[in-house]
């Protein structure tokens, strides 16, 4: 019951303090809204680029091993089994020479060449889906060392392209994290200074609280709640703006840059809403806690 009364006191004090200090509080909400909106845009861009990269990654994480003509079927099956047992490999598909020719001929672009082909010059193949792009090189090395591989053209592995892709993917991740980190630090500083202004305005009250025996957390509580309130309000506004802008942006992007596979992802929007709201609340709590820690010692 006592805890409940303390909570009620802290909530009402925080609410009063927020509005008593309205100009500073609203300025902080506005600035943090912009920062969280930027952070949200950063997350959206990261998610979109990540999606595009994932699509490319899934394409290049498949390597085709050409099987030399005359390789005994048992040797092929043995190697196929060996690859299937490898934890780095998600799946292996054997494409026979006939199937390879049928696929080739089925493509309308190859129609002219297909008509001129005599016999079947295409090699049988093992199509290997590697779980992680980072392991493709190792699987390629294994394939090249296999005695059944076509010595002229053992695999279609594009090492340089993949390593570039990996580097780009890492850069995108790091750049996103750095931008996010900077934005978060700036937000914490803004909340900290807003709360210090509130502490200054309420210094008399704080002094009396200390004199009559209030605990440190009783004095701090309303400021931390005020910080959370500032963070959550800013997060809600930022989220509203992001949600309003997301759909039209994707539509516009689609019409202007149709070759880039960008789509509206409702699952990501739900995750974004959760992250921005929790992020706003935590930033507010952290900023206000740091802001009052030194000034509200009993």
């Amino acid at each position, binding site marked *: *019951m*006592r*805890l409940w*009364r*303390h909570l009620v*006191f802290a909530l009402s004090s925080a609410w009063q303090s927020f509005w008593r200090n309205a100009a500073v509080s609203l300025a902080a909400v506005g600035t943090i809204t912009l920062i969280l909106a930027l952070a949200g845009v950063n997350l959206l861009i990261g998610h979109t680029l990540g999606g595009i990269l994932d699509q490319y990654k899934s394409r290049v994480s498949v390597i085709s091993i050409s099987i030399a003509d005359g390789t005994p079927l048992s040797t092929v099956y043995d190697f196929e089994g060996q690859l299937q047992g490898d934890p780095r490999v998600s799946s292996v598909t054997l494409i026979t020479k006939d199937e390879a020719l049928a696929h080739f001929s089925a493509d309308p672009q190859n129609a002219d060449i297909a008509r001129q082909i005599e016999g079947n010059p295409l090699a049988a193949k093992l199509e290997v889906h590697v779980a992680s792009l980072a392991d493709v090189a190792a699987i390629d090395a294994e394939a090249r060392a296999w005695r059944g591989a076509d010595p002229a053209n053992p695999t279609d592995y594009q090492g340089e392209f993949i390593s570039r892709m990996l580097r780009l993917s890492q850069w995108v991740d790091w750049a996103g994290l750095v931008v996010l980190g900077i934005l978060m630090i700036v937000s914490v500083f803004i909340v900290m200074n807003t709360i210090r202004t509130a502490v200054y305005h309420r210094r*008399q*009250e704080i*002094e*009396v*609280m*200390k*004199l*009559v*025996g*209030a*605990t*440190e957390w*009783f004095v701090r509580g309303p400021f931390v709640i005020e910080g959370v309130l500032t963070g959550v309000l800013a997060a809600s506004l930022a989220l509203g703006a992001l949600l309003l802008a997301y759909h039209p942006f994707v539509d516009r992007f689609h019409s202007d840059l149709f070759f880039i596979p960008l789509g509206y992802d409702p699952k990501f929007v739900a995750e974004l809403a959760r992250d921005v709201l929790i992020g706003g609340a935590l930033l507010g709590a952290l900023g206000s806690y740091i802001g009052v820690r030194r000034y509200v*010692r*009993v």
Partner: protein
Amino acid sequence: MVLQADFVGARPLISFQHVWKRYPNGTEALRDVTLSVPEGDFLFLVGASGAGKSSLIRLLIREEKPSRGKIFVDGQELGRMKRRHLPHYRRKVGLVFQDFKLLPRLTVYENVAFALRVLGEPGGEIRRRSTEALETVGLAGKLEKYPRELSGGEQQRVAIARALVHQPRLIVADEPTGNLDPATGWEIMQLFLQINHQAKATVLMATHNRDIVDLLRRRVVAIDGGHIVRDDRAGGYHETLAASGLRA
């Protein structure tokens, strides 16, 4: 010079044992202070500005820690008290200041009730105890007034009611009549005497008001240059000056 109190038999509520206070800037505010205050005592702390009275009070309410020596209040050593226990200690001490320290946005009643609200006391208990404290100081008819609508004496009464609402065993007052005219100051002193007599609260009061000290003839502890230079059971302000050569 260190003077020992001569109250034999009574249990000391406050005990300073060879206490020194040196601030980081090198100022030595208290030097080897030994003082014993029995429960129920009424003590005036006198001395010129900068003599060490405020430092002694800051140590007593544990705003500061002694540099050397020990301070006991009700058997608890303040220097070793953990920060989390400080609020509980301060609830046992009623504090009254020269500038009243009232919250201007709160009414008389709310100012007093605030001291109980911060402890999370139930509403009924807050009402009962706040009203009772305000009746004791004679302000039962002014509960809804704001501090700005009251005279200086009335504001000090509110501050005393707020100090009393915890039913403390010790009242520490720092120049409580400093902002009041002599007649109002005398009324406030009557209130402190009444609290000391009826509620059996120990009162330690720092003051420059020589008329009051001379009239009441209570225990007087004089400080000069951080030392206790006189401790009289029924002293006067004047004798302090004569004996120690303190300035007025």
